[in-house]
């Protein structure tokens, strides 16, 4: 699904060049669950922004579903982001004047989907995220865990193939952090490709595939014991069906 070839991202700070990503090679298959760890400044966020088409490489190539993204116009990149990629940020990035329901609904609104089609989808997500009581609350009136659940709702409302989470538990206590992580894992179980950047060893260890970064390069890339991952997954079952089901092969965002 994703292939990075000799990917570089340089920043010019003063008259010094920082190699945030340094000739990085990586390939990710559909449905994988990866965690990315590493010291601060090692390029984790830069990598995630690159995968999310928020940033452009200085050199190298990024192939998404076989297409070279370097040839894409900004408009096409925007539409790929909207339809295929979901983001979850450490600081939530909710729009403060919109309530929980409206924040979740936002991608559907921006995509120009009719209100009639939006309503059931948002209602379903609110129920699924256990936010029905909080639907009319603005972010200020929500706890960190609730905010992050709203952000996750917004990230998956367009049914993306790829979910990118940059320290999603970074601002949360361990209990709501675990809730958020299990929610993400459940989405992954439903078929979505999940990549989580984290500083938390416990969070990182849950992923089936783990990346460790140092100085803009991947220093370690290993699969954890699948039995262990499975046991974690089944240890905390969540009610209901998986959120993301793409068995009918329809393109996301085209509903």
């Amino acid at each position, binding site marked *: 699904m994703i292939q990075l070839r000799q990917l570089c991202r340089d920043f010019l700070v003063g008259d010094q060049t920082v190699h945030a990503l340094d000739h990085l090679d990586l390939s990710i298959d559909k449905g994988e669950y990866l965690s990315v760890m590493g010291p601060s400044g090692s390029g984790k966020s830069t990598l995630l922004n690159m995968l999310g088409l928020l*940033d452009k490489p200085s050199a190298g190539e990024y192939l998404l579903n076989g297409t070279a993204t370097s040839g894409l116009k900004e408009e096409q990149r*925007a539409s*790929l982001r909207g339809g295929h990629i979901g983001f979850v940020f450490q*600081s939530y990035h909710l*729009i403060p004047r919109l309530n929980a329901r409206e924040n979740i609904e936002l991608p559907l609104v921006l995509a120009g989907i009719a209100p009639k089609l939006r309503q059931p989808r948002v209602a379903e997500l609110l129920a699924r995220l256990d936010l029905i009581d909080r639907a009319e609350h603005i972010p200020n009136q929500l706890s960190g865990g609730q905010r992050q659940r709203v952000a996750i709702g917004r990230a998956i409302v367009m049914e993306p193939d790829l979910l990118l989470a940059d320290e999603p538990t970074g601002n949360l206590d361990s209990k709501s952090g675990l809730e958020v992580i299990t929610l993400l894992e459940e989405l992954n179980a439903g078929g979505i490709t999940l990549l989580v950047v984290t500083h938390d060893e416990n969070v990182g260890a849950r992923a089936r595939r783990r990346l460790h970064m140092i100085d803009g390069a991947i220093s370690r890339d290993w699969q954890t014991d699948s039995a262990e991952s499975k046991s974690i997954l089944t240890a905390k079952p969540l009610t209901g069906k998986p959120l993301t089901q793409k068995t009918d092969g329809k393109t996301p965002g085209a509903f």
Partner: protein
Amino acid sequence: MRFGDLLAFNFKAIRRQRARSIMLLIAIAIGVLAINLLTGIGEGGKQFVLGEFDILGKNVLIMVPGKKETTGGIPPLTGETTRDLSLQDAEAILRLPDVSAVAPLIPGKIEISHGSLSREAFTIGTNRAFFPMRKLELAQGSILPEVPMDQAVSVCVIGSKLRRELFGSRPALGQWLRAGDSRFRVIGILKDRGQGMSLDMNDAIMIPVASAQSLFNTEGLFRIFIELRGLQELDKSRLRITDLLKNRHDGEEDVTIITQDSLLSAFANILDTMTLTVAGIAAISMLVAGILIMNVSLIAVSQRTSEIGLLKALGLPARTVRLIFLTEAMMMAAGGAVVGLIISQVLLFMARQTYPSVPFTTPSWAMLGSITVAMFTALIFSAIPARRAANMVPVDALLDKTAG
């Protein structure tokens, strides 16, 4: 993004930034208010003057004693007299072949009484020709009799309001009125014409000009209305009348002849000045509003940097980001325009209540124009901020730490 969703999204943002929205609204409202109010006043004045002349007709000249330059400003309607205009002058003018009628005028105010009722009334010494010239119609009786101008006859025609006040419901025709030392028999009553223009004929009494001369103890005429047979030779006729008066007044050109055109062109000057003022005020207030819009929008764009980053991360293309900021400015401008429009119309309505005879109304071109100008101002001055928002690199915008 659907249009309705766009409006709703913007509306929430506008409501959130109340202070800046109100500031913008006021700036736009002032501009729109100025345009609508001033054009409304100008148009009202113009219609008023045109209405006045509609009654007289284009082929009527007004002669006033005294000479003034007619090129600058309004002609001397009040007239400082150097040499009197006499009844003989009026008769001489009437003998000219291109003149069809002449109506002399001596106005005054005098106490009119009937029985125990009395009232100060506007008194006009004139002749028979005055009635058709001013399009005065009778409700009862007849107009002043056909007599030589210098012959005093003790008859009068009165306005409908004066009749009501002096006679109530009793018949007035044939009754005698006392005016100063003289007595006049009522031979005609004017139709009620509603609020008149400059002279309220409902409240007036008309007597033969020679009677007015003795009543007010004056020889000179205040004005002479001259009706020409046709319009084609207006300038020639005007010269001929001037020459005639010059001959009669020992070669001195001491009268002024006013035509509808000369009065209108004098008024057009005033209107032009007014239009320039309107344009100036509009331009300045719109410029101020525009600069406000630009600054305030630039601030908003930088305040909302992380929101813009998010919108882009959620897949919103640059052109839609630009559209959001453009329509937001235009929505505020539209709000301001509506407020300005409403205030101007309320003020003009109040002006019409105070001066019922002047039709103060904003012409529709000014209404449409002011709204268009307001919207264009918003569009033009929000273009730069909107482009700045649209061109933001998503990752940089998201990383902006000023907002969460």
